[in-house]
């Protein structure tokens, strides 16, 4: 009994030992078809998985014995729990999904991920990807260990009829945004629909002002504790956020409203503005799912500027969704060959689903004839070179939790901007060194 215990304790921690060697690209040897696994955090019937499933079927027809087993866990917290457990046990599969987070960076440092910059280069496919899509997946030092499979721009969807009724126009500066709220609220509508159950949508709001004032600079320093929220940019930002509470921009119970609730408030004609990515384009152009008064009244505007903005009107939140990593432990000629086949077929098949693609291929005839869809597609070529990144993928996880919690309180008007700055600055000072040393 005692012996067994000691042995079990030893194996418990033995898992994390030697650094794995980064595999050669391309790997040497024959292609031997087998079953491979993709641990995915994407909707099971969404365009990415449907497309890859179809491609895997083609590949299996040419390579008997091959099978791609996709294990999807769309709920992100459940997914991350699973990924972390597998990583701790060194049981990562052939493919797994992750953002370029500090956690993923640790996986890379342990040699558990394949260098996808070298991989794409050896396929000769690098220039088929939109640079913005690739850049979003890079780690802080510019290295690339993920493959982008999606593409999205984040915009402010708004209800034209409600704006008209309140006598307001889309804001041209960020300061105009909270100023719209009292006028919209006076007409009996909710100014801004917001999903507060998930931490990330409110966290987008704290990123807007710093991105306009400094590009990515402020965040890069803040996450390491080199800049503070009590610095001028942070003060300006947090006071501006506090004005959302005082101006009545948000639902009184936004913190208890989920993703679907917030979207429904907008599409069912209860809210005037809804900030969300183009992955919701379907809900915006599919009039059957909307309230009658909303149909034909949806338009969007992009992130407003500030008087002294360092970034352009064509630069805002653009991202390529969660990336796909290739595990190095099981990387072999088969995986190498399949990824090549998959990416070669992906650009065309995926673009034809109507989803915006991380690759440059554009179908000659748009798969959807809604004018709003055409307008969004037309936005892509105009994009600038800078883009804002989500803070939740950049901050260390503990500081991130504290920020998200405090942000809800700030937006509800429970705490002041100063209290917010103090609490979050203290959390970053305590936790950042563990991740950014």
């Amino acid at each position, binding site marked *: 009994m005692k012996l067994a215990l000691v042995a079990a304790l030893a194996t418990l921690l033995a898992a994390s030992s030697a650094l794995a060697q980064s595999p050669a690209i391309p790997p040497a040897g024959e292609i031997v078809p087998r079953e491979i696994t993709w641990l995915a955090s994407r909707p099971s019937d969404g365009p990415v998985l449907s497309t890859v499933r179809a491609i895997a079927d083609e590949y299996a027809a040419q390579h008997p014995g091959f099978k791609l087993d996709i294990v999807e866990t*769309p709920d992100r917290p459940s997914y991350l729990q699973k990924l972390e457990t597998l990583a701790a046990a060194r049981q990562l599969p052939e493919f797994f999904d992750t953002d370029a987070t500090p956690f993923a960076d640790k996986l890379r440092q342990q040699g558990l991920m394949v260098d996808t910059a070298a991989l794409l280069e050896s396929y000769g496919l690098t220039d088929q990807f939109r640079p913005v899509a690739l850049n979003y997946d890079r780690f802080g030092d510019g290295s690339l260990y993920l493959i982008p499979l999606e593409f999205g721009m984040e915009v402010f969807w708004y209800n034209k009829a409600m704006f008209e009724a309140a006598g307001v126009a889309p804001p041209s500066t960020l300061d105009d945004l909270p100023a719209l709220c009292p006028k919209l609220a006076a007409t009996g509508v909710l100014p801004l629909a917001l999903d507060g159950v998930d931490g990330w949508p409110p966290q987008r709001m704290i990123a807007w002002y710093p991105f306009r004032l400094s590009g990515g600079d402020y965040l890069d320093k803040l996450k390491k504790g080199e800049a503070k929220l009590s610095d001028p940019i942070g003060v300006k930002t947090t006071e501006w956020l506090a004005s959302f509470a005082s101006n009545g921009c948000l639902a009184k119970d936004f913190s208890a409203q989920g993703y679907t609730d917030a979207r429904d408030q907008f599409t069912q004609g209860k809210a005037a503005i809804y900030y969300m990515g183009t992955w919701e384009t379907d809900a915006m152009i599919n009039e059957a799912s909307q309230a009658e008064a909303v149909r034909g009244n949806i338009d969007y505007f992009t992130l407003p500027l500030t008087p002294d903005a360092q970034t352009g009107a064509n630069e805002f939140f653009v991202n390529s969704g969660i990336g796909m990593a290739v595990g190095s432990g099981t990387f072999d000629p088969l995986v190498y060959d399949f990824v090549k086949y998959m990416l070669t077929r992906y650009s065309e098949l995926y673009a034809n689903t109507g989803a915006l693609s991380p690759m440059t291929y554009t179908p000659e005839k748009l798969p959807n004839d809604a004018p709003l869809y055409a307008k969004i597609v037309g936005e892509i070529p105009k994009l600038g070179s800078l883009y804002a990144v989500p803070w939740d993928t950049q901050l260390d996880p503990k500081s991130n939790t504290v920020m998200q919690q405090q942000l809800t309180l700030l937006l509800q008007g429970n705490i002041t901007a100063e209290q917010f700055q103090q609490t979050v600055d203290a959390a970053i000072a305590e936790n950042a060194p563990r991740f950014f040393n």
Partner: protein
Amino acid sequence: MTSEAVVNRSAPSFPGTGALNLQRAFSQVIILLIVLVQVYPLVWILLTALRPAQEFAAGNPFAIPSVITLENFERAFAQGNLGHYLLNSAIVTLAADALIVVLGMMAAYAIQVLGFKYSRLVLGFFIVGIVVPAHVTLVPLFLNYRNLGLLNSYWSIIVPLVGFSLPMAVYLFQSFYSYIPRELYDAATVDGAGPYRTFFSITVPMSVNTVVTVVFVNTIFIWNDFIFANTFVLDKDMKTVPLGLQSYMGAMGSIDWTATFAAVCVTITPLLLALLVLNRAIIYGIQGGATKG
């Protein structure tokens, strides 16, 4: 000592005075209110499952649906492999329940009936397990199962479920066995029954009510388990119901609620049927399970 005895003891009625009648009426009202509160959620879930998706998004979620539709059920079956999830959950639940009951009875029998020098200590050892939260044992468990080659099998869900349910089962069986009069066992011994025959001829038959309680409480827990299934099983052919309910989740966390509720309706049906069919056994089992048979 069986459920019959309990039935016969029920329905005490008191000769009524005026005040008592008033009190009785008041009791009836309170009870009616409680029943309303307890039944309402099931009705709400069913109504939501029958409501058009757009009406759920737009309208008062508590109103009676304007149209009854089966579209949600169509989507529920089209997007998720409901039959398969149910089958997997049934396999896991039945196996885990059986093990919990058998192992729980065995341990309680050894501790309470047979008795031995350190039996109280062993009981305490089991009872400590009642209070262990499962979440942080996930990483060690995962590593252990990997070493034992148990990952990705029904066993990898069943074993932790059994382990974490066992303490309460042992506790309930043990506290019930303490009510079985010693004379019964003494009589059996006089008849020449050994420990094994006594177990099967006296203890097991008398445990029916406690078995029902243990099975009922654990079935609910097992049927709802998400965390073990999510952590230890990669194979999607082995998805249980709680994992399957995620099939209705779209990009970034949007959820097809009406389809989810249709699926919830389908997946609670087996439990509901079991509750209705085995109604008397379950109710009297729980009623008597924690004390005496």
